[in-house]
C-alpha cells in the first residue's frame, strides 16, 4: 500500500526536470478539512436533475478557503455537474433543476438578490476544452475587465500584464500580445484561459479537468501554477488523473454515480480511505 502511495505522489516523469512543479507533498496536507480553514463554498443536501434524470444525490460538502479541493471519480459520476453548479453555469441547460442549497461565503447563490454575473466574476472557471476566444491574446485577457466597464487603456494594460504573469505566461507572450490567441500552443492556451479568469479577480477558481488535453510539460506548469494560486484563491479542480489529485490537492472528494462517497483530506483518501469503493478506485481496481 505504501509503495502505491509513493508511486501515486510522484510527479509525472517529465515534471522531474521542473522540481518546483511537484506540488505539495501529500503528507503535508491537512489531516482533516474542518481544522484550519474558513468554509468558502457550502453544499447542503443538493440534488440535481437533468430533466427526469437525477445526476446528483444529496451532496453535502464544504470547500475550504485558500485550499485546493479535488473531485475525483469515474466519468459521468456528477463531479463536473457539481462544479458547474458553483457558478450556476448549469442555468444554461434547459430542463435542469437544483434542489438544496449552495452557499458562497454563507450566502445562497440562488438567492434572487444574487446577480449571476457578479457570482461568475467571483467564481471563475477554466474548462476541459481549451477555449480562448478567437481574438488576440490581449483581447482575451482584457475581455472580463472590459465587461466590468474598465475602459482605460493603461489600466487594462496593467491588468493584462498582471494576469498573464499570474498565469506564468507573460514571458512567453509579451511580444505577441496582439497576435491571435489561437496561434499559441495548447498548454499556453490553457494558461491564457487561466489568465483570462484571473483578470476579473475571482475568489474561487473552478477547474474542470484543465489538463486532460495537455502534454505532461504543460500539465506540470499548470500544477505548479495552482500551487502558487492557492495563497489567495480557493481552487476546486475536477480531475480524472489520480496522481494529479494526490499531488496538488489538499482535500479530495470521491464521487460515484452521483453520490459523494467520501470527502476528506487528500492524504486520508489516498492512504486510508474509509470506504471500500474509494479504496478500489484509488488503487485502480476500477474506473
Amino acid at each position, binding site marked *: 500500500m505504501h509503495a502505491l502511495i509513493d508511486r501515486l505522489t510522484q510527479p509525472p516523469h517529465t515534471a522531474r526536470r521542473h522540481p518546483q512543479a511537484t506540488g505539495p507533498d501529500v503528507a503535508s496536507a491537512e489531516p482533516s478539512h474542518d481544522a484550519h480553514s474558513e468554509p468558502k463554498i457550502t453544499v447542503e443536501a443538493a440534488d440535481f436533475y437533468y430533466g427526469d434524470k437525477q445526476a446528483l444525490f444529496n451532496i453535502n460538502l464544504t470547500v475550504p478557503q485558500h485550499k485546493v479541493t479535488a473531485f475525483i471519480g469515474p466519468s459521468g459520476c456528477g463531479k463536473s455537474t457539481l462544479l458547474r453548479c458553483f457558478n450556476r453555469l448549469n442555468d444554461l441547460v434547459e430542463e435542469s433543476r437544483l434542489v438544496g442549497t449552495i452557499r458562497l461565503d454563507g450566502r445562497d447563490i440562488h438567492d434572487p438578490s444574487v446577480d449571476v454575473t457578479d457570482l461568475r466574476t467571483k467564481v471563475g472557471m477554466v*474548462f476541459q476544452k481549451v477555449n480562448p476566444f478567437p481574438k488576440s491574446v490581449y483581447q482575451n485577457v482584457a*475581455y*472580463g475587465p472590459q465587461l466590468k466597464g474598465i475602459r482605460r487603456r493603461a489600466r487594462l494594460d496593467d491588468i493584462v500584464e498582471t494576469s498573464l504573469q499570474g498565469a506564468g505566461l507573460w514571458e512567453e507572450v509579451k511580444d505577441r500580445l496582439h497576435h491571435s490567441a489561437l496561434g499559441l500552443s495548447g498548454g499556453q492556451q490553457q494558461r491564457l484561459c487561466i489568465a483570462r479568469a484571473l483578470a476579473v479577480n475571482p475568489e474561487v477558481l473552478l477547474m474542470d479537468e484543465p489538463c486532460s488535453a495537455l502534454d505532461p510539460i504543460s500539465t506540470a506548469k499548470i500544477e505548479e501554477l495552482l500551487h502558487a494560486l492557492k495563497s489567495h484563491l480557493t481552487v476546486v479542480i475536477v480531475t480524472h488523473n489520480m496522481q494529479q489529485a494526490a499531488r496538488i490537492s489538499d482535500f479530495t472528494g470521491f464521487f460515484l454515480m452521483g453520490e459523494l462517497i467520501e470527502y476528506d483530506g487528500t492524504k486520508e483518501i489516498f492512504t486510508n480511505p474509509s470506504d471500500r469503493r474509494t479504496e478500489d478506485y484509488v488503487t485502480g481496481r476500477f474506473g
Partner: protein
Amino acid sequence: MATRIKKFLGSGTLFVWFCGTAVAASVLLVSGVLLLIMINGLGFFWPHALVELTLTDGTRVLGELKGEEVIPHSETTAFPEGKTRVKLKIGNRDLYGLDFRWVDTERVVSADTPTDVIAVERREWGNFYGRIREVRRGGEHVASGNEDGWTALVPLIDHANALHDDVAHLQRDVIGDVNYDIERIRLKLRALALQGQDDPVRIAVLEASLQALERRYQEHVDVLRTLSDRLNEYSVVLIETNGRELSLPVGHIVNALRPNAMGLFEKIGTYFINFWSVLSQEPREANTEGGIFPAIFGTVMMVLIMSVAVVPFGVLAAFYLREYARQGLIVRVIRVAVNNLAGVPSIVFGVFGLGFFVYAVGGTLDTLFYPEALPTPTFGTGGILWASLTLALLTVPVVIVATEEGLSAVPREYREGSLALGATKIESMIRVILPCALPGILTGLILAVARATGEVAPLMLTGVVKLAPALPLDHHFPFIHFERKFMHLGFHIFDVGFQSPNVEAAKPMVYVTTLILVMVVILLNLSAVAIRNHMRKKFRSAAV
C-alpha cells in the same frame, strides 16, 4: 468471375465513378453555359469584316458574315451533302427593311472583302454598310468620292459626338435641374392650396420664381435648338453596294469604321472602346443598341439596398431562433416554415410586394406625406425601395438558415467561457458569438445576393421599367431616390430579347447583357467571399 464482380462492387469503386461522373457532368454543363455566353457576348464587340458577295444575277450583297448552314432537304445526287447558304447581316434597315439575309452559296459568283467599305453605326435604323459619295454642308459640296469623303467625315463625326455630349448635358443636367425646381415649386403651391393657406405674399414669391425658372427653361431650350441645328449642319450622302443613295446628317452617326482596312491592334483597340461604351452609355433604339449602364447601375444599387435590409432582419431572426427561443415544437414549425418560404415561387413575392409595399405602405405614405403630388403617386407605385424590400423578403430565409448554421458552429465552450467571465448573454453574443458567426452570415448574404441579382419576376411588379428616365441616385437632395423606378439587367434581357421589335438584331445585345449580368453576380459574390475569407483568417480555429 462472379466473385470478382462482387469484389468490384464491394470495393466502392463503382460508387466513386458515379460520383465523379456526376461532378464532371455538372462542371461540363456550367462551363458550357458560360462558354456559350462568353463566345456570343464577347464576340459582339469585335469589329467584324465586311464581305461583298456578287451574285449570279449581277446584284451584290454587303454585310457581316454571321453563319453558314446546310439547306434542309436539299440533298441531291449532285450535292450529296446538301446545298449550303450563308447568313449575312446586311444592315441598312431603312433601305432594305431587313437586317439579315440568307444567300444560297450556289448563287454566289465571287466574294471579296474590299478595304474601302465603311460600317456606320447610326443613332437610328441600325448600321449602314456601304461607301461614301459626297459630304455636304447644307447645300454646299465639301468633299466627294469615297476616299476624300472618308477623310472629311472622320473629324466631323468626332465634332458631332462632342456636340451630342453637350446636348445630353444640357438636356439631362441643366434642363433637368430646372424642371426639378419647377416641379418642386409647383408642388409647394399645391401643398399651400391643400392646406387652405392663401398667404398672398408667399404665393406671389413662389409664382415669381416659377416664372423666372420658366424663362430660364425657355433660354435653355433655345440653346438646345441651335445645338441641334449645328448637329444637322453637315450631312453625308452614302451609297449602298448596289448604288442606292441615302442622305444622312452627320449628327445621326455614332461611329464610322473601315473594318476591312483595320489592322489587328486597331481592331483590339476598337474592341475595348466598344466594350466600354456598352458599359458606360445609355440604351438607344428601344434598348437594342447603345449601352446598358442604367441597367447595371440599377441592378447593383437594388442588390445593395436589399443587402442592407436583409442582413439585420435575417440575423436578428436567426439569433432569436437559435439563442433565445425555447427549442420545441413551435420553433421547429417556424424553422420548417422559413425553409419552405425559400421555395415559394418568386412571382408570389412579387404579388405580395405589389399589394403590401406598393399599394398599402406606399399608398399610405403618399396620402400622409405627399398629398400635394396626388393623384400622381410618389411611393404608391413601383420603385427601387419596394423592389429591394420584396427581394429582401424573398432572400431572408437564406440568411436566416445560413446564420443559424453559423451560430450552431460556434463552439459551446466559447459561450460558456464568456458567461463564466461574468458576461451577460447579450454581451457574450455581441462580443464573442457574433464575430464567430460572421462568416456564416456572409455566406447567407452571398447566397442572397446571388439569388436576388438574377431574380426578375417580382421586380416586374414592383418597380422595374424598360427605360428609366433618371437614375435612382443623383445630385438632388436626398441623393438616393427610393421612389424612382429603375432598370435591371435581368429584365433588360427579357425586354431586349423578347419584347423588342427586331429580335434578331437584338440578339447580340441579349448575350452581352447576359454576360454582364453574370459578371455582376460574380463580382458581387467575389467581394463578399473576399470579406468572408478575411474574417475566416481572423477567426481561424486552432489545431490543438
